[in-house]
C-alpha cells in the first residue's frame, strides 16, 4: 500500500519535472522573442556567443568530465564544423570572389545550402572525424591521450593553413552568411543541454561514468570500454561540429588562427571552472566566461577619464584567465558544480517534501 503510494508520487513528480522543463523552455523562448526589442545588439551578441560556447563546452565536458578521458583536440572538430558550414552556406558568387589564390574545388564551388542541413552535415563530419581520431587514440590513456589529441588538433590547423583550394589558406573565409540568431544559438544550447542530461542518466551515461571511475572495474562488470569511449567521443564530435558551424555563421569570418590551441584552452577553463563532469556547470561557466572576457576587454583598451589617460594592457585577459585556471586547480578542484547538476528535485523537495521518497531513490 505504502509502496504503491510512493510510486504514484514519484510518477507525479516526474510529470511535474517535465512540465516545469517545458515551461522553462517556453519562458526562455518568450524572452528571446522579445530580446530584439529589449536588448541592444552588443548584449545580443554576448548572448549568442555564450550559447555557442555552451554547446561546445558541454560537448567537451562529455569526454573530459563524464567519460574522464583527457582530450586536448576539440579545436579540430570545431574547425571542421566551422569550415563545413562556411563552405556549404556561402553563395556561389561570393565563393568565386573569395578564393583568389586558388579556386575552390568541386563540389563546394557549386552548392549552396540553407543553414539547418549545413549544420547537420557539419555535425556528421565532426562525429565522423571524432570516430576516426578516437579509433587509434583510445589505445592510449591519460597524458599520452592528451598529447595525441593535441597533435590531431594542431594538424587540423596546419591543414587549414595549407589546403588552399578548400580552406582559402591563412586568408580564411569572409562573407559567410550570418543566418544565426538567438533562436538558433539558444535552441541548440537547450537541445544540447537536455540531450546531455538525458544521456548522463541513461545506461550509456552511467557506463561513461563507470569508465571514468575505474576502467578495469568497468570492464569487469561487462562494459565494452572501447566502444563506449568511441561512442562518447563521436557524440561530442557531433556537437562540436555543430557548435563550430554555429560559430562560423555567427561570426561571418573564420580563419585557421581562430581554431588554434587557444580555443581548446578557453573550453578547458570553462569546463574546469564549471566543474568537470557537470553539464549545468559547463553551461553556466560558458556564460560567465564570455561575460567576464567582455568585461576584461575594458582592461585591454585604453581608458580616458577626463584628462586622465590609462593605457590599455593587451594580453591582460589571458593573464587573468590562466591565473584563474591555476587557482581553480590548486584550491577549488570541484569548480562551480562539481559533478552535480541543477535539478527541479532540489526545489520541489524543499517546497513539497515527500516522506521517504528521496531516501528511497538513492537505494533503489
Amino acid at each position: 500500500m505504502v509502496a504503491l503510494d510512493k510510486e504514484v508520487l514519484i510518477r507525479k513528480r516526474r510529470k511535474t519535472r517535465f512540465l516545469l522543463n517545458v515551461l522553462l523552455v517556453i519562458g526562455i523562448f518568450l524572452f528571446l522573442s522579445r530580446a530584439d526589442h529589449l536588448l541592444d545588439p552588443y548584449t545580443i551578441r554576448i548572448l549568442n556567443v555564450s550559447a555557442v560556447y555552451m554547446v561546445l563546452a558541454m560537448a567537451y565536458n562529455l569526454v573530459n568530465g563524464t567519460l574522464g578521458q583527457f582530450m586536448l583536440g576539440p579545436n579540430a572538430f570545431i574547425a571542421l564544423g566551422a569550415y563545413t558550414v562556411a563552405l556549404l552556406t556561402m553563395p556561389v558568387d561570393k565563393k568565386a570572389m573569395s578564393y583568389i589564390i586558388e579556386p575552390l574545388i568541386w563540389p563546394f564551388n557549386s552548392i549552396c545550402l540553407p543553414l539547418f542541413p549545413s549544420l547537420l552535415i557539419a555535425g556528421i563530419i565532426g562525429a565522423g572525424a571524432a570516430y576516426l581520431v578516437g579509433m587509434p587514440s583510445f589505445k592510449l590513456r591519460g597524458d599520452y591521450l592528451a598529447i595525441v589529441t593535441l597533435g590531431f588538433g594542431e594538424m587540423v590547423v596546419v591543414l587549414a593553413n595549407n589546403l588552399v583550394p578548400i580552406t582559402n589558406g591563412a586568408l580564411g573565409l569572409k562573407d559567410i552568411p550570418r543566418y544565426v540568431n538567438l533562436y538558433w544559438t539558444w535552441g541548440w544550447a537547450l537541445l544540447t543541454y537536455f540531450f546531455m542530461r538525458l544521456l548522463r542518466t541513461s545506461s550509456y551515461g552511467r557506463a561513461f561514468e563507470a569508465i571514468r571511475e575505474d576502467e578495469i572495474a568497468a570492464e569487469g562488470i561487462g562494459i565494452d570500454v572501447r566502444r563506449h569511449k568511441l561512442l562518447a567521443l563521436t557524440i561530442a564530435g557531433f556537437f562540436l561540429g555543430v557548435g563550430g558551424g554555429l560559430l562560423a555563421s555567427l561570426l561571418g569570418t573564420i580563419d585557421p588562427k581562430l581554431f588554434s590551441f587557444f580555443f581548446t584552452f578557453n573550453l578547458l577553463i570553462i569546463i574546469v571552472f564549471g566543474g568537470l563532469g557537470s553539464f549545468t556547470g559547463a553551461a553556466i561557466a560558458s556564460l560567465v566566461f564570455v561575460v567576464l572576457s567582455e568585461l576584461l576587454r575594458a582592461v585591454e583598451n585604453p581608458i580616458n577619464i577626463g584628462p586622465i589617460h590609462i593605457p590599455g594592457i593587451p594580453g591582460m585577459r589571458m593573464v587573468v584567465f590562466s591565473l584563474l585556471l591555476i587557482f581553480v586547480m590548486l584550491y577549488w578542484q570541484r569548480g562551480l558544480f562539481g559533478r552535480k547538476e541543477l535539478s527541479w528535485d532540489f526545489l520541489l523537495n524543499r517546497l513539497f517534501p515527500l516522506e521517504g521518497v528521496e531516501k528511497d531513490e538513492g537505494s533503489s
Partner: protein
Amino acid sequence: MGIVDLFQQLANGLSLGSLYALIAIGYTMVYGIIRLINFAHGDVMMVGCYLAYFGVLMFRLPWQISWILAVLLTSLLGVSIYIGAYKPLRRAPRISALITAIGVSFFLESLGLVIFGGRPKAFPRPPAFDIGLNIGGVYLVSFTLWIPLITAILLVGLVYLIYKTKIGMAMRSVATDIETTSLMGVDVDKVISFTFAIGSALAAAGGIMWAIKFPQINPYMGIMPGLKAFIAAVFGGIGNIFGAMLGGFLLGMIEILVVAFMPSIAGYRDAIAFGILIVVLLFKPTGLLGEPLKEKV
C-alpha cells in the same frame, strides 16, 4: 641535390636537432621523476631568451655574463613554478597537474605579452657566432657549428651529473620510486626542485641558442619548439635522457631533410613532427629507447 647541399642540410639538421635535444631533456627529466608533462617548459625557454636579451641590451652586460645570468635566473623560475604550481598537486590525479601546467604555460605567455610586448625583438648575435665559413664549398655561419658543440659540452656535463654525483644518484632513485627514496632519508622535494632547476637551465641555454639561430624573439616563440621537443622526448622514449638526445637529433634531421628533399610540402613542416608523434605513440608508445610500461591494476 649535390653532395655539398646534402652536407649543408646535415649541418642545419644537426644544429636544429641539438636544440630539440637540449629542450627535450627538460621534459624527459621532469616526466621521469613526477610523471608530469611540463607544458610550460617551452615558455620557460622563452623567458630565458628575454632575460638574455635584456641583459645585453638594457643592462649593457657582456653577452657571456648576460647569458649565464639568464640561465641561472631561468632555473630559479623553474624551481618557483614547481613549488608554486606543481608541488601542491603531487598527490592529486596526474591530470590535475597537467591542467595546471597548461595554465602555467598560458600564464607565462600572456604575462610575457604584457611585460615584453607583442612585437618581435631582434636578438643580438655575438660576433663570434656570426662568422661566415666556407668549408669545401659548404657555406655555414659559425653558430651552426657552435650550437652542436655547446650542446655536446652541456650534455656531457649532464650525464656526469646524473651518473657520477650524489645528487644525480638521488635523482635516478626518485625517478624509480619516490616513496622508497623518501624512506631512505632523501629530501624528495629538494631533488625534484633540483631537477626543475637543471631542466629549466638547459631550456634557457637551448632557448638562447634558438634565438641565435632564429634571431627574432616574441612571447609565443616557446610554443612550437616546446611541443616539438616534447615530441622528440616521446620519440626517444620519455623518461630516458639518452632517448631525449637521440629523439631530438633525429627529429631535427628528419624535419630539415624532408623539407630539403620535398620543398613543395614545406608548409606542412609542423605537421611532420605531429605525424611522427602519432605514429610513435600508436605503434611504440615507449619510444625508441624507453622501457615498457607496466600496467598496474
